[in-house]
Structure formats: structure tokens, C-alpha cells
């Protein structure tokens, strides 16, 4: 496990675990930090996390896959999250998603083959006043039209 020593990202996770006294209930906090540092939950890191917190592997995996926020595969360079909350739904979010699926041949949860763009869906970003909303690379875009989104995606893919 030489990576542990050389990869500084482990130190970030260690810091989180230390803050919680390496107790088993720090698992979710630890997973958050792993995802921030790596961008996803790498199986080797999960193994290391399980050992460090003295938890069974299957439990760590079970927790990691229970929550929507955690992803087990590397994500694309850019991300596009389409909100499918009620307000966005009523205001036409399904059309946006359909257009993206149609134009880019992507379905939610997928990343383009060139690892450029990941498409995700969300259950309400809580910005219903701006519905329909899409989060492009972490920035919330409100009252968005299907065309606006695909245009931006084409730019990313160009």
C-alpha cells in the first residue's frame, strides 16, 4: 500500500476520520471526502476506508451505494445535472432531458465515451422559483430551455 503514503488525497480523508475519532459512524463523512478528493469512490480506496474504520467491506459498499450522491465510476470532465423535481417537471424538464438523450445519446448516469460529459438527474435542487433548472458544472442555471442546454453540451463536446 505505498499509494497510501504517496497519495496526498488519503491525508484529506484521514483528517476527516480523525475529526470523528475514527469511529464507525464517520463512514458517510469519510465517503464524502473520498468523493471530493477522487471525484468518485474508487474500490481500492473503499477497501482502505473499510480497514481504517475497521468495518466490513460489504457494509461500506452497502452504505456507499445506498445514497444517490456517491458514484462508483470516474465522472466526465464536465457534468450536467437535470433537475426533475415537481416544479421543474411541471415546467417541462422532461423535454429537456429528452432532447439531451436524443441529441447526445446519453441517458442519466452515463458519461460520454471520451469522458468529456456526465449526464445526471436530480430530485429537486430546491430552486423551484427558477424552474426548470439545470446544474452545469456546479453552476445552477434557471429557467432554462432544452436548446440552451444542448448548445452548452455541444460546446463541451466540441
Amino acid at each position: 500500500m505505498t499509494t497510501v503514503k504517496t497519495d496526498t488525497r488519503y491525508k484529506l480523508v484521514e483528517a476527516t476520520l480523525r475529526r470523528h475519532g475514527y469511529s464507525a459512524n464517520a463512514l458517510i463523512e469519510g465517503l464524502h471526502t473520498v468523493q471530493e478528493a477522487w471525484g468518485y469512490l474508487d474500490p481500492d480506496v473503499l477497501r482502505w476506508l473499510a480497514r481504517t474504520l475497521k468495518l466490513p467491506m460489504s457494509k461500506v459498499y452497502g452504505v456507499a451505494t445506498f445514497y444517490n450522491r456517491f458514484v462508483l465510476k470516474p465522472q466526465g470532465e464536465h457534468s450536467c445535472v437535470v433537475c426533475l423535481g415537481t416544479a421543474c417537471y411541471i415546467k417541462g424538464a422532461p423535454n429537456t432531458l429528452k432532447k439531451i438523450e436524443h441529441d447526445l445519446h446519453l441517458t442519466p448516469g452515463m458519461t460520454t465515451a471520451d469522458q468529456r460529459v456526465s449526464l445526471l438527474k436530480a430530485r429537486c435542487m430546491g430552486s423551484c422559483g427558477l424552474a426548470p433548472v439545470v446544474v452545469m458544472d456546479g453552476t445552477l442555471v434557471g429557467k432554462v430551455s432544452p436548446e440552451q442546454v444542448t448548445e452548452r453540451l455541444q460546446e463541451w463536446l466540441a
Partner: protein
Amino acid sequence: MQDEVATLLEKTASTERMAQSRYSQRIQVCMGTACMALNSEQVKTALEHAVIENGIQKQCQVQRVGCPGLCSLGPMLRVIDKTITAEANEPRETLYQQITPEVAPAIVTSLTPAAQPTSALDAHRCEVADTFFKRQVKVVLEHCSHIDPERIEDYIAHGGYRAIQSVLTEWTPQRVIDSITKAGLRGRGGAGYPTGLKWATVAKANSSNGKKYVICNGDEGDPGAYMDRSVMEGDPHRVIEGMMIAAYAIGASQGYVYVRAESPLAAKRLRVAIRQAQRAGLLGNNIAGSAFHFDIELRLGAGAFVCGEETALIASIEGGRGQPRPRPPYPAESGLWGCPTLINNVETFANIAPIIDKGWEWYAGIGTAKSKGTKVFALTGQVKTSGLIEVPMGITLREIVFDIAGGIPNNRQFKAVQTGGPSGGCIPEKFLDMPVDYESLAKVGSIMGSGGMIVMDDSTNMIEVARFFMEFCMDESCGKCVPCRVGTVQLHRLLSKFVDKTATPADLIKLEGLCKLVKHTSLCGLGQAAPNPVISTLNYFREEYEQCLKPSP
């Protein structure tokens, strides 16, 4: 020692007030999630630059505040000008909407002594403000949009932490509980359980290791609801103070705030607020020199609607899969790590300080016989003005939809209003004059819920709406119990048959039977309430289902 805190609060408050009184003009920019998405941060920077350029930095302050509620018209800002008094010697307040960084300097120019009357800002004056705010009563949101949520001093200057200070010095825990009980406050998470009763149960419960916990449920996952997020973003100290008072009343020394990962700004503001309160000695050991110890930790959710259910939330804080377990035992007896635990929702905690401060009599004077106080709603969907509102209990749906929100746009007709999110129901026009309170909403097959309110016009297909919510519940089901895990999938398939017009009369019977099964046999509230959108649309829009039956061969 106790006086020290009182002095500290007083000193902080007077220093802050003095500092603020130096400014005769204030520009308050909304820094809620919605306005920030519309570049309100850049607007604020532009304003600050303009203030300096115009050389009025000694009289004009640009301030960050929480959400005023008109989220669809952001970025919002408010100008308070003491140099001009309006009615009753109050300084003139003007609300502006849809301000861009380009328009921002014009606002500052209009505040300079040499300002000429200009029409440049006319388009940005918030016209709907009068009607939008007229019927509202702000208790929970009283500070939101008026104070800087990232400065504890501002909260203290507005009377913050006065309630906990007097509770710690003069009140017994029993008196606190009695006050909350008499105020008639009910849980704002949706079910409406009497808060005082819950507190009394936890206070009485025996803990084997002496520990008790307070949990603030900020896992607001209903699609179309963002009340709690706005409160946490706009007035985080209010939530902390409510938790402190609760902890004192029930004898807890540790608290947790559980916030959705989808609300990063709320989490950030709470983190800042907790740190500030710790530094001010308001959280930690021997608070205010008393024997009261209390600290709060923030826990970030990771995307699971079911974690709004209290036993699932506890499992999640314990670091596990957020799966509910059968109750009893209730968390009040055996909750976090097996200890008695009080779980209340964000809005519930935000109601506590004013009840202590202004007295339960005042609070009980607002609302209806069985539902006291106010309720915050996130009003969205097909209305002219959507946003965050706080109304007294007992107001009618018609007043909310037509008076506050201005009715239905695009010359369409009102069809239904959906409350309670995926656990609620669709309320048709015939109940528009019904008062909004826990009992009335339940009577018509919906629930108060946490406060999402979605208005639908006559272009809405109710079966698709029911299927939308069923898909939500199906995706969010934790998978532990059979009726919810499989029943929601089967319900979704049946609803799809109606949407595709391939359903048979036998499918309608199956649909109704399954709704009943899932409602009565699911383990937790998510499953038990999952059929509600179907049941209510079947009740009020049955003809739409019948029209979707496959023509018999």
C-alpha cells in the same frame, strides 16, 4: 457568570446597532441559492464598487441577506433609505427585482445626494411586492432577508439569543416545555405531531448512559420544497437557538443538524453559524456560566429522500444505510445510539425562540383552533408569482393561489394544488376555500407536508402527475419492506398502462387494491404515503382514469 453572557449579548447588540446606525442607507442583496444562481454575488460586487466610486461608502452599506421569497424574480434587493422617510417616519424601503450587475450602479447613483430622477430603474421596481407580502405573516422568516446570515452580531442585534439567555437564567426545563405545549406548536415536518408533547416524552425518557440527543431534520427532500433550506440559509442562528432551547428542556448535551448535500449553501451557512456560536461561548461547555453543556455537529446527507424519516435519519447519522426500522420504540425512547432522541424539523426549531421571547399567548393567537402559528410554503408551478411565503394557519388556498401568487398565468384555468409532495395529494378547485391547517388538508386526502405547494393548471394530466410522484417514491424506496419496494414498482407499471391507454377495468381494480396494500402495510411513512397522489387523483379526477381505459374489443 450568567450576567457575563447577558452583558456580552447586550454589548454585541449595541455595538452592532451603533455600527449599523452610522449608515443612513442600506442595500440588502439576497444571497439565497436562487438569487445566487442568477449572479447576485456579482450584483453585490458591482454595488460595492459603485458605492466607492460614488464616494458614499460612509453613508451607504451593501449587505448580504437571506431570501425575501420572490425567487422567480431574482436577483432581489432592498434599499432602505433613512434620509427619506415614508409613512409614520419609517425609512423608505424599495424592493427591486431582476437586478443585473449592469443595472446595479444605477441603484447606487439614485442614492447619491446629487441624484436626478430617472426612469432607468422603473422596470426593476418590484410591482408584485404589495400583493405578494400583504397576506403574509412573518414569524419564522422574520429575519430572513433582513440580516446577514453569516454574522452572528447581526442576529444578536435583532434580538437573537435573548430567548436562550433568559431560559438559561430564569426558566426551568418544565416551564419551557409547558410554554411550547401551550403555544400549540405542531411539527412542521409534515405530520403535525404536537411539539410540546414530543419534548415532554424525551424529557421524561430514561437514558441508560445518561445521554440524550437533539436532531434537527434538515433533510428536506420533497421535490418542490425549499422552505427549510431558505431558513437555514437566511437565518441559521435561529435554528441553532431553537435547538439549544430544546436541548435545555429535554436535558441533551449533543445536537446534530442533518442537511441535504443538495443544499451546500445551507450547510456552509450553518457551519459558519455553529463556529461563531462556539466562539461566542453560546455552544460548548457551561454555556452562559450555567451547568448547561451543548454542542452541535453538522451532518451532510448524501441523497436519499427516505432519510427524512426519523429512524432512517438516525441510521444515517450513525453511518449506515438510511433505512427506517419499525416503531415503537420511538426515537423519543430509543433513538440515536439507543438513547432518547428529539427530532424536529428546521422550521419547528425556528419557531421556538419567538415563542419564548414573545410568549406562548402571542403565538397561540395566530392560526386556527388546532393549528397554531404560521406555515412557510414553497409556492411553485403554474402561478404568476412563485416563491417562498409564510402565512398564518387557516388562510384559504384561494387566498394563497390567487391573492398572494396572483393566480394562473397564460389565461389558463386552475386545476389543482398539490401539497405534501410525493406523500400528499392533489386538491381540486372545490376545496379552494378550505382553510389551510393540518386537519382540513388531511380531510381532503392530502397532508400539510413540509410545505411544498405546487399549482397545476388545466393543461396538466393528473395521471402523469400521479405517475411522476410514484416514480419518485419507487426510486427513493429504501427497499427494506416488500410492499414499498415491489408495490411502488407495480403501481408505477399500472399507472403507465393508464398513461399509454392500455389499461383494462381489471387494472383499475388492481390499482386501487395495491394503493390500499402499500398504504396500510408499508414499514415507514414513505411507503405508507406513497399511494396518496394516486388515491387523491382517483378521488377527484377519476374520469381521467376511466378515459384512459383500453376500448374493449
